[in-house]
């Protein structure tokens, strides 16, 4: 019987580290050996690859990219909760929205799209931040649209019922103001539930995404990292078309446009690095 690998050599770790960095932009320092080795060994066993070399060859060339997806999933932290990566919401309120209103030339609302919606935490967090932290909310209308491919999760998102874990980073006063504690969990008030429109969309279906246009800000956090090179490029083009000229794109904190597309310009704000579609009369 062939024993499966029980350890990863330093050279194999380096090979893997270089490959993963090239593909995702995420670099695992040597201090992460335990974290990475454990997961690699897990996947080597799960795929019956026997050793790292076979596993790596399979990883690099699997047409479907399914194993790479699995691996990325394992290597990244995926929990969704309110106020996750909070600095991006700060950036929205402190830097992005002020710039948008400064050059706004139309009467319509400011439009924000967040995809994937998952169970709604991101969209509702945006809503809370706009109501509580953005002075401009008294002057400007904002439309928040949130989409996901999974209809079941959309039902959950619309319902607005959350676990204690999910709301652990919600400031106390927001929790008191916008949530009701019930036997089943934390129920979001109708004020916020009615502030967000949820829709079903498959980002990779050109026909389905075509009508999504004229957004000022798009949040697409921790989704594209799971796509292969072609799909990422495609998705970047989709988002480019979905944005108004000068519109902004935010990815997850360990994601970078540098692995996806040259369409966007890098913008540095005090709170975050974001990406901008060129144009819109803003240099």
């Amino acid at each position, binding site marked *: 019987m062939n024993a499966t690998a029980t350890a990863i050599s330093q050279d194999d770790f380096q090979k893997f580290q270089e490959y993963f960095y*090239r593909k995702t932009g995420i670099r695992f320092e040597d201090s992460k050996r335990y974290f990475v080795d454990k997961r690699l060994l897990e996947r080597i066993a799960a795929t019956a690859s026997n050793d790292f070399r076979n596993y790596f060859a399979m990883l690099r060339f699997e047409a479907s990219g399914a194993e790479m997806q699995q691996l990325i999933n394992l290597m990244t932290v995926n929990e969704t909760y309110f106020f996750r990566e909070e600095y991006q919401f700060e950036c929205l309120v402190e830097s992005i929205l002020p710039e948008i209103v400064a050059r706004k030339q139309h009467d319509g609302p400011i439009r924000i799209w967040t995809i994937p919606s998952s169970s709604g935490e991101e969209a509702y967090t945006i809503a809370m931040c706009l109501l509580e932290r953005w002075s401009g909310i008294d002057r400007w209308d904002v439309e928040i649209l949130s989409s996901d491919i999974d209809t079941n999760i959309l039902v959950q998102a619309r319902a607005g019922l959350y676990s204690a874990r999910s709301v652990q980073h919600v400031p106390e006063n927001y929790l008191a103001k916008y949530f009701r504690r019930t036997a089943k969990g934390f129920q979001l008030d109708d004020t916020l539930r009615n502030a967000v429109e949820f829709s079903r969309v498959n980002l990779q279906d050109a026909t389905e995404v075509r009508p999504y246009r004229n957004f000022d800000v798009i949040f697409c956090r921790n989704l594209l990292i799971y796509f292969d090179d072609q799909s990422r490029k495609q998705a970047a083009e989709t988002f480019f078309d979905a944005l108004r000229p000068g519109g902004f794109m935010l990815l997850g904190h360990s994601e*970078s*446009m*540098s*692995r*996806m597309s*040259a369409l966007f310009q*890098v913008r*540095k704000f005090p709170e975050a690095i974001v990406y901008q579609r060129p144009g819109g009369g803003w240099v």
Partner: protein
Amino acid sequence: MSRILIVDDAATVRMYHREILESAGHGVDEAFNGMEALEKAFMIGYDLFLVDVNMPKLDGYAFLRELRSHGELPQAPAIMISTEAEAIDQNKAYEAGANLYLVKPTRPDVLLGYVRLLLGEPLQ
């Protein structure tokens, strides 16, 4: 301690240059292409850039042009490293904003000499 950003899509080349520079006491960061280099340059004020030409998404020339024309990016000298030996390519590099030009494959002593020169350190 000086901080140098190596911009190259080839892992082995980055490793090679890293070893050379670290052995001479320089701090080193890496970027896979011009776009990642911009992102890093926004966060850290580098003392020097080592820039490859052929990279996906944003090549070396485009990176330098963006770096030099960007009001908010801290400026630093740049060595362009290329496979092309023609004079015309050197001019392109200087026009894009490189300070010096090296042809691959590089030699440690030459590279370190150029680095010392651009960092204003005395030549040994």
